Each structure stands twice: as structure tokens, then as C-alpha cells.
């Protein structure tokens, strides 16, 4: 599970920026091309963004693919709250909207999109959630940042940046749609500004 990246955390920016807005933009453009190349075109592609920050990332990737290919790309969102393995160790949180694009996911290529890949547990939950929604022909994973420390045999197919990090560090992704600006920052957990 990625370290919490709540809006408002950045009232006192700390640590240092590892990706700025231009880096994020370039990474997403590259990921978009990789997805197209891997899928041999835009046919049957469905992008599912994982809440919270995977949702705008999926939309941005879809826009890039649309501008290259000139065809609309199906985008949806996936909430994995109900599928988490750590439900019992937190106070309950309400689920967010799961939106499956028209046409469903049966027989199509689903690309899960998330901001940070860390333990892999969120993706495990997402695979279970996808399983309840239908039967895609292929499921792939695109992440903006892979920070290592996997706890499950899960890997990403498309990575914006590999960011070796210590467990004691926090990787925070900020996106314009949610936080008002784009950046990826790494900081020490508990560090005082």
C-alpha cells in the first residue's frame, strides 16, 4: 500500500522532488506509447484507474493515446476498498465509485493504472475486483512510480520511474486534478520541516 498521500499533506513541503510536472508528463507519454505498442494498437483497450490518483492518471494516458490514434479509449475507475486484506486493521472507509466503461471488460485488454507500486497488495485487491467485474483477455499494470519492497509476486508492465526507496521513506504523488499541481516527492517518514 502506498504511503498515504492526502491533499493537505503538503502544507509543509519536505524531502525532495524526484519528478516534476514535465517529468510526469514525459513519463505518461512514454507509458501511453508502450501500452499501444504492447497492445499492437488501441483495439479492445480499457484503462481502469485505481482510486484515488490512478483515476486521473488513467484519464491522462487515455487522452494521450486518443491524440496519437484518433480513436476514443474506454476509461473507467476501480475502487478496491472492499477487496483489501487489511480492512480489519483500519476504521472502515466508504468505497469510492467503480465505473466500468460501456462495453464492459469481457475479452478486452484491461490496463490497471495506479500512482505508486509498493507492496503489491493494492494490485492484488484490484485483480480480485476485476475478476468480479468480468473476464478480460489480458490484465496489465501501469504505474507512475515503482518504489520496490514487494510483498507479493506482482510486477508492473509499464513504469514511469523506478524509484529505489527505503521503507522509512514516504513517496507522495501530487496531481493537478486532486492537489492542484504535479510532482512526486520523497521524504523521511516523521521528518520535521
Amino acid at each position, binding site marked *: 500500500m502506498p504511503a498515504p498521500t492526502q491533499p493537505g499533506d503538503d502544507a509543509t513541503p519536505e524531502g525532495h522532488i524526484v519528478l516534476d510536472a514535465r517529468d510526469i508528463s514525459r513519463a505518461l507519454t512514454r507509458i501511453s506509447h508502450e501500452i499501444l505498442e504492447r497492445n499492437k494498437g488501441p483495439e479492445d483497450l480499457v484503462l481502469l484507474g485505481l482510486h484515488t490518483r490512478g483515476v486521473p492518471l488513467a484519464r491522462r494516458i487515455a487522452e494521450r493515446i486518443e491524440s496519437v490514434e484518433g480513436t476514443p479509449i474506454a476509461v473507467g475507475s476501480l475502487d478496491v*476498498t*472492499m*477487496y483489501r486484506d487489511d480492512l*480489519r*486493521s483500519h*476504521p*472502515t472507509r466508504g468505497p469510492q465509485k467503480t465505473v466500468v466503461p460501456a462495453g464492459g471488460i469481457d475479452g478486452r485488454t484491461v490496463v490497471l493504472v495506479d500512482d505508486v507500486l509498493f507492496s503489491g497488495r493494492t494490485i492484488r485487491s484490484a485483480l480480485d475486483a476485476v475478476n*468480479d467485474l468480468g473476464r478480460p483477455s489480458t490484465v496489465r499494470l501501469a504505474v507512475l512510480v515503482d518504489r520496490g519492497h514487494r510483498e507479493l509476486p506482482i510486477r508492473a508492465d509499464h513504469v514511469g520511474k523506478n524509484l529505489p526507496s527505503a521503507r522509512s521513506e514516504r513517496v507522495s504523488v501530487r496531481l493537478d486534478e486532486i492537489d492542484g499541481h504535479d510532482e512526486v516527492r520523497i521524504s523521511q517518514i516523521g521528518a520535521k520541516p
Partner: protein
Amino acid sequence: MKHLLSINDLDVDAMRMIFDTAAEMHDVQHREVKKLPALRGRTVINLFFEDSTRTRSSFEIAGKWLSADTINITGKGSSTSKGESLRDTVLTVCAMGVDALVMRHHASGSAQQVSEWVDAVVINAGDGTHEHPTQALLDAYALELKLGSLEGRRIAIVGDLTHSRVFRSNVLALTKLGADVTVVAPPTLMPSGIDAWAKASGFSTSYDLDEVLPGADAVMMLRVQRERMNGAFFPTAREYTVRYGLTRDRLATLKPDTPILHPGPMNRGLEIAADAADAAQSLVLDQVSAGVAVRMSVLYHLLAGEETA
């Protein structure tokens, strides 16, 4: 919040949270695979000492769709009919390792009492003439789906108020959500002391249905609970219908899109005419479908997270 015994256990934020989650659950209801793993390995017992079709089956479906194991125990056919006390019954059931008790009992306050005896989460599915909180939550949720915000909306609750736990929970829930509630009943079925309560909670009372109906944004008809009546509350059923029933004539005085609610089971021809029950504006079946979503939401919020002390 450990139990759900009364609408008073919830503030507006908690109700909002339940509705938001219910909206997601409503989507699951329309999926091919109606299953979420959130309550896997948890056990929910429906302990019903009074008859019920929709509440019990709706709690059972809600629990099953969240992957909980749900078991039904009814008063008839259980050891209660051999004379076992309520306390012994619930302690026995809980000794099996139960996480939640969904309970309906004819004694007001029984859910509260049971919650003091057991460690399990207790959900009140109707205690005597006291409360039926999930019914009020699903009514408010179904109404919001139709009307949007209930702030300032004029809602009439009509019928046998004295014996109605649905009315008590609904008044609490709807006034919390800002609705302008008027309750209508014959003087014999108006609970004693309601004026003080109405004044404190900000709702109105009336004996005249025809005066209230034209201004209403929604009408909730309540069942005439003959099984709880041990006296003469009105001269004849016919007279009740004429004065307080949602008849075909009264239906015509409503706006065509004014929602009509009834918690069921309906006495067709007594408090509600078939024309009204089956009208396009009737939410009776929407209430049932909202019931599953809202009960999934309630079970999820009470059972999925870490244990609260």
C-alpha cells in the same frame, strides 16, 4: 458506533456515509457477480421474534452479498416456544461465535437490552413500537434518489402512528436531514405526548389528511397494525379509509411525480388504494431494492473495520 439501535446513534455525517456506500452497493446489485469479499469469515445471525418478509430476507441477502455467513432464527420453531428467555436465547446464539445479531422483537427497547448482554454488534431490525432504524435509512435514501436533497422538502407521514416504529425512526432521520415533516393520524392513533416531541424536534402534526396532501413533496403511508391493536381505534375500516386512506380520489390531488412510500406489507384498500400502490410515482419496490443496498452499507460499516471498543 458499535451498534445500530436507534437513528439517534447516527449524526448527519454518519447517515451521509451510509448513503454514499449504499450508492456503491446499489451498483453491485445490478452486476452479474453480486458478491464483495468485505465480510468474508464473519457471521451474521438474523434473530426474528416477529414475522417479516422483506426486512429479514433483505438483511440475509445483504450479508450474503458481502460474503458473510448469514443464518436465520425465528421465534416460531426456536427454543423460545419452549419457554427459553430472550437472554438465554441470545447468549446461546452468541456463544457459537457470532459477529452480529440482527434482531426483531415485540418488546420496545429489547435491542438496547440485548446489546448490553452480548459482545456482538447488534442491529435493531424493529423493537416493538420503538424504532426500526434501517427502514428509516432506506426510506430517506430512496427519497433522496428521487428528490435530491431533502432539505426543506415537505414530507407527510400518514397512518397508525401509535403502533409505528417506522414512523418514529423516520421522523428522527428525516428531520435530521432537514425535511419538513408533517405526521397525520386520527386522534386515536396519534401517540400521547407527541406535541412536546413535535415541538422539540421541529415537525408538525395534523388530523386532516386532505389539508396536508396538496402541499406534500412526498407521502409515506403506514400500515394499520391490526395485530398490535387491542382496542377500538376507529369505528370501521371503511371509515378509516374514507378519512385517512390514500384513495384514488386523493391520489388525484397529488402532483403526478410526488413519490408515494409504504414500508410494507400493504393493506390494499385500507390505508392505500391499489391505484396508489401501483402508480408510476409509487416507490414501494424502490424501497425494497434500496433496502438491500442500505443494509449492505450498514453491515459493512459496523463489521468490516477494526473493532471498536
